[in-house]
């Protein structure tokens, strides 16, 4: 178990910069998730920690040791790949033993470790099978087993759930969480799936366009996004964005006006807001309710009935669309005129540079 420190790490492929001056510390025993869209550099960053990609600038430390000049095998990390990368001609046992045999570990110790990992991951009955004879979920567990037997300082997971079907993915996600609770080892997990990130992470690193947008706990990221990108990327359905004008402040908090002239009182201190320029209101669908006493009017375009709640896509007078929530048994139909009430206290404002301003507290 060790912390991982990245100091001004950069990487470029040819003339294309893929990582720019990234710095962060992953605490010892922490479950850190790198979250971002495809091509944002999250997998490259993980591979740089693993030693599978050289860095062009900066330093990487694992524990008290600088490792960016060391080969992957000497960094004390284990990695689980997206496609598992199991050796197809070897049995489950041999897949797990291979790394230990290469460091000439005594046979008895190898057998002990493999047996322990197989028991932990419920692979005992599959130990002599080859990867081709296993299901996706079983292969996944073998790949984790191969990592566990090495007793690494840190586990690196590169989108390990993306090849599983939805049901298995949800189950395996829980197994990952249990594994981390049991092992308490530093884990770095790359995904583009925000649900995986939110449910597994102690902290999330949201990346976009080669850079870190925000590092924080899942609830921090969700409730206090640092930028419009983070606000839009995290949360499903996505946050609503509406152009607004700040008209005044009440007790130091911004009062904004929607294009249809309805007013929303926010909990965002006006002192922090820019004096000029366009503002955008960001508000999550659960903070916009279908409410007969609401102040904002519109027409429902699409209705999504999810069982425990109903989502209404409501077109406002200025033609912008807002996603609002209603109760599960909502009688709302497409084409109905609806009134919406906005919970301005949980709203965010974004300036022209997409910097976020959130409610105090």
């Amino acid at each position, binding site marked *: 178990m060790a912390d991982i420190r990245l100091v001004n790490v950069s990487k470029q492929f040819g003339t294309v910069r893929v990582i720019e001056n990234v710095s962060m510390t992953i605490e010892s025993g922490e479950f850190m998730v790198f979250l971002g869209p495809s091509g944002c550099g999250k997998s490259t960053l993980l591979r740089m920690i*693993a*030693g*599978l990609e050289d860095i062009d600038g900066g330093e990487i430390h694992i524990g008290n040791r600088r490792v960016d000049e060391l*080969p*992957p*095998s000497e960094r004390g*990390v*284990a*990695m689980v*790949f*997206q*496609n598992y*990368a*199991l*050796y*197809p*001609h070897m049995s489950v046992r041999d897949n797990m033993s*291979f*790394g230990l045999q*290469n*460091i000439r570990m005594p046979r008895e110790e190898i057998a002990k470790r493999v047996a322990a990992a197989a028991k932990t991951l419920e692979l005992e009955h599959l130990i002599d099978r080859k990867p081709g004879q296993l299901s996706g979920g079983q292969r996944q567990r073998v790949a984790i087993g*191969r990592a566990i037997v*090495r007793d690494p300082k840190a586990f690196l997971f590169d989108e390990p759930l993306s090849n599983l079907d939805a049901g298995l993915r949800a189950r395996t996600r829980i197994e990952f969480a249990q594994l981390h609770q049991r092992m308490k080892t530093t884990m770095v997990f790359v995904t583009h799936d925000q649900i995986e990130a939110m449910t597994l992470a102690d902290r999330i690193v949201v990346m976009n366009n080669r850079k870190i947008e925000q590092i924080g706990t899942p609830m921090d990221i969700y409730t206090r996004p640092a930028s419009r990108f983070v606000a839009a990327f995290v949360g499903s359905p996505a946050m609503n964005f509406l152009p607004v004008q700040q008209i005044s402040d009440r007790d130091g908090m911004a009062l904004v006006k929607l294009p249809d002239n309805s007013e929303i009182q926010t909990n965002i201190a006006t002192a922090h807001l820019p004096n000029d320029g366009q503002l955008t209101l960001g508000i999550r669908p659960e903070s916009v309710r279908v409410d007969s006493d609401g102040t904002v009017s519109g027409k429902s375009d699409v209705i999504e009935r999810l069982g425990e709640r109903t989502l209404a896509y409501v077109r406002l007078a200025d033609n912008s669309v807002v996603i609002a929530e209603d109760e599960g048994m909502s009688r709302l139909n497409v084409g109905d005129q609806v009134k919406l009430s906005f919970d301005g206290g949980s709203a965010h404002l974004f300036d022209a540079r997409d910097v976020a301003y959130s409610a105090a507290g």
Partner: protein
Amino acid sequence: MSSVATTPAAGEVVGMSPRKRRIIKALDIAGLIATIVTFLGAIFWAFPLYWALVTTLKVENDIVQPGIALWPQRFTLDAYTHVLFNTKIGTWYINSLVTAGSVTVCVVLMSALAGYAISQLKFPGRRILWWVILASFMIPIPALIVNHFVLISQFKLFNSWLGVILPQLVYGPVTVIIYKQFFDSVPKELREAAKIDNANEFQMFFRLYLPMNWGITTALAIITFIGAWNQFLWPFLAVTDEKMMNVTVGITQVTDAFGVKYARDLGSAILAGLPVAIVYLIFQRKVTEAIMLSAGIKG
């Protein structure tokens, strides 16, 4: 009013238009013609083999009689007993086995290593090396015979196994190309996983890449062995000592020593080809695979 239900006759396709039926009929006729032509081709190809086999079972006097006798009037195994007990065919078999076996092991191992290096390692000159291998593929082997002859002469390797084996090691570019293509197709994550698993290049090669598809190695080994066993020109030039001859060269001595005896000549030819035929029959599928692999390269 009663209706009569009719059932289609056997083989008749229900609901098919007359045009479609005509097309299927035409296809059947084409298939039949193709089968007949193939069958005739097979007879045309196999007849000399049959003729050789039948001749070895005839008495020499019957062989030289005018007319065509498709079946022996008197059966005898004299030709085989003579070749087996009055020639050095046992020694020739051993020579062939040693030289063809050595060529096979060396060509397969060197080609696999070269293919692995070119496919997986980054080193200066890698691209040039690859082009050289490709270029060597364009040079016909007989064009190298004189060079080989001079070299082997200078190294004083005539009438030795090494002299027969060494020049045949340059017959490997196709094998290198096939290995390279296979190693290229292995997902790079396996190599990365092996790197994290502390594997060095030799461990990666011998424990991962090579065993990952023994089928390719087996197929290439078989086809290389058959090629080396059947080699005639180079072993014929490199060996003059009867004790060091390969079986393909040795059987020419049967004629020289005993004059023209058709049954003996053909008997020795059949005995020379027998091991290859057995290898082919045992590994038929692998040989076909290997031919397909190399045909894919040669276009």
